[in-house]
């Protein structure tokens, strides 16, 4: 029996169209638009001036606080403009626009492909290097990685869990990375293990990626303390709490962080970024992105510079299909529809999904028939139908008692609802309103 998490979960069609497509380099765009807020936390502060010549890997915006990250220029060229550009939220956010000239990298970056296994830096130096390189969690949440590498005082981590689950349908960027950069990734895992001082690491991979499981299991023989755990395919196994439950069978108490049970979770993509940052001195300015969709001519996995317009990726994958209904940044379950194809890709973009119109439209909401499907699929053991009712009735205090803040917004409830009720929309409303109440209570 393969391991998995115990509560709830769903099985959406996998549609991994690009699982066998090698990672290709996407041609450099003419200009890049680099947002200064690509991570959770404070936006970075711009430190370049208009007209400055920058090289790829040069820092252009400095971390704006403890929870924040540096932003590096993804290309070499001239800073032409600082502008406000509409991002996925539709609101205008500060960006740095750079006109590309050639492809010159900062001298300190090691551009060679040679694998460096020796870890020469001390744990403190590793944390500093990861912070300087602007590495954030590449699973999608974009939480600054260096914060996770500093285990809080009084807490002890005993295991590192690598998230190679990629439970979102369609997406294959982590899958390809594990296959093609497996060795580098494992060194990255070793680096993280050194930083947080653990001697055990587990890589959780869902069983629909058999080649990756096999490949990494073979590679792991050369690395002490790292094991691969195949997991049963079930969404949302990539959720931190679900992954911990599935791999080491520990349950995180409501409202607590994984460190509470001695675990630190990192995405496999982040491990690779940490390797590049520490061993190659290369800041995070490019990442693997899956561009996919059923009617797309040539779905692919691309290595893309941050700040490239989404339209460039679509062009490279064969152009926008006629029947497009939505362009989604991320996967179909948790991704966000884009407002236009000019939105730049950021550190957190794991995929671009082109959805045909017939599939993308929501159906009309019907009354709740009390079938309790949402209750049985909720991976956090909540009662989504009840939470939605409380949100509609604005009974936020009772909603809080029903642990709405534990919701991981995986969307399983909305997915299974036979009445097409927008459960997650209302739960999110409840979460934001209760968040305000909690903050005002603290103040």
């Amino acid at each position, binding site marked *: 029996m393969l391991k998995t998490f115990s509560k709830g979960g769903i099985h959406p069609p996998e549609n991994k169209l690009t699982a066998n497509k090698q990672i290709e380099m996407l041609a450099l765009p003419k200009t890049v638009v680099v947002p200064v807020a690509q991570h959770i936390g404070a936006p970075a502060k711009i430190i370049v001036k208009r007209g400055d010549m920058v090289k790829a890997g040069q820092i252009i915006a400095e971390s704006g606080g403890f929870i924040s990250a540096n932003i590096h220029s993804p290309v070499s060229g001239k800073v032409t403009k600082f502008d406000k550009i509409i991002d*996925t*939220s*539709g609101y205008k956010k500060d960006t740095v626009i750079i006109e590309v000239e050639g492809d010159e990298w900062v001298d300190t970056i090691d551009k060679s492909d040679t694998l460096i296994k020796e870890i020469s830096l001390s744990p403190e130096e590793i944390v500093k290097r990861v912070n300087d390189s602007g590495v954030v969690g590449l699973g999608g949440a974009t939480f600054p990685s260096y914060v996770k590498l500093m285990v809080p005082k009084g807490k002890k981590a005993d295991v590192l869990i690598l998230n190679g689950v990629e439970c979102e349908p369609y997406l294959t960027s982590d899958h390809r990375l594990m296959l093609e950069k497996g060795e580098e990734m494992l060194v990255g895992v070793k680096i993280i293990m050194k930083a947080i001082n653990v001697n055990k690491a587990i890589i959780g991979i869902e069983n629909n990626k058999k080649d990756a499981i096999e490949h990494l299991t073979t590679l792991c023989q050369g690395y002490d303390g790292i094991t691969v755990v195949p997991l049963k395919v079930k969404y949302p196994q990539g959720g931190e709490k679900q992954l911990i439950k599935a791999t080491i069978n520990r349950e995180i108490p409501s409202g607590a962080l994984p460190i509470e049970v001695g675990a630190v979770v990192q995405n496999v993509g982040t491990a690779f970024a940490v390797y590049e940052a520490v061993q190659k001195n290369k800041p995070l300015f490019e990442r693997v992105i899956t561009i996919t969709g059923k009617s797309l001519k040539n779905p692919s996995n691309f290595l893309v510079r941050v700040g490239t317009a989404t339209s460039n990726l679509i062009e490279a994958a064969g152009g926008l299909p006629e029947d*497009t209904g939505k362009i989604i940044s991320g996967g179909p379950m948790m991704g966000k529809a884009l407002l236009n194809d000019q939105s730049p890709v950021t550190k957190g973009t794991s995929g671009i999904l082109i959805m045909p119109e017939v599939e993308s*439209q929501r159906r009309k909401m019907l009354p709740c028939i009390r079938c309790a499907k949402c209750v049985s699929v909720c991976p956090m053991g909540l009662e989504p139908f009840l939470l939605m009712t409380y949100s509609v009735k604005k009974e936020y205090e009772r909603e809080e008692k029903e642990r709405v803040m534990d919701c991981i917004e995986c969307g399983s409830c909305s997915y299974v609802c036979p009445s097409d009720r927008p459960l997650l929309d209302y739960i*999110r409303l409840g979460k*934001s*309103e209760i968040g305000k109440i909690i903050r005002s209570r603290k103040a």
Partner: protein
Amino acid sequence: MNENEVIIATIITISSIGILAAVILYWASQKFKVIEDPRIDEVDEALPAANCGGCGYAGCRNFAEACVKDGIDDLFCPVGGNETMQAVAKVLGLTASEKEREIAVVRCSGSPTHRPRTNAYDGAENCTIVASLYSGETGCQYGCLGLGECVEVCNFDAIHMNPITNLPEVTEDNCTGCNACVAICPKDIIELRPIGKKSRKIYVSCINEDKGGAAKKACAVACIGCSKCFKVCAFEAITMNNFLAYIDPNACKLCRKCVDVCPTGAIHELNFPPRKAKPATAGGTTAVKKAVAKKAEPKEGINLIETAKKAAEKKGTDSKEEKKDNDNKES
């Protein structure tokens, strides 16, 4: 026991239980008596009993308690207005300060003709949810989302969606200025303004803080921050901030010069008599004038809203077709 005895025994038992209970209840009521200021009841009596929360308290009773406890200097019942406050003052032997009645105005005129849609939203129909997700269906990130949460929260039937413009409209006679719609609007487009002389008002019906070009591109009737109104105003009632004009209702002398110079028709006048023949400055203003002329006659004003309501019931199917059209255009 014969029948009579049974009846008598029953009567005696029940009556003694009753008497005993009465004694206990009387004792309890004396022992645990809550001494309440009798004036609270009197004040409560004088209040409108709308329990709308517009005063900032949970209901009229709480407001009455606050009046008795803290005095009425800082308190005001927007629903009852000055009359109610005077009645309250009379009960408490205090003097009420006069306050001008306030009315909600909607500071957005981006109807579909002026503000084209750039995308279609098909999630939960609730303004707050849309606002937390993204900027909305049009290019203007400031404007009305058109899902009518303000209509839902209004306790006085004073605000309705106009199905043609897809914007909320305030019925001034019903509006009590309770602040409910102002508080719920996630875009902050509704503002309470003093009712003004003969309920005449002039205000900038836009809150777009983008530069002129961007604002105009998103919406034809946006305030573009050209400062023409600011320059023409003789009473220093207009301030410019972030490419947006704001008219201070207390300083405004209702001269209407700003309305004439506004190039986009973003400045609205309410309840003025129709103007003498004078060429209109922009398409936007003429439309407003027509609406104003209708509103000046109350009967027709009500009809307008009723037709709006009827059309709103029909709206369901129409809007969906429209959505599909839009999607087609996008792809």
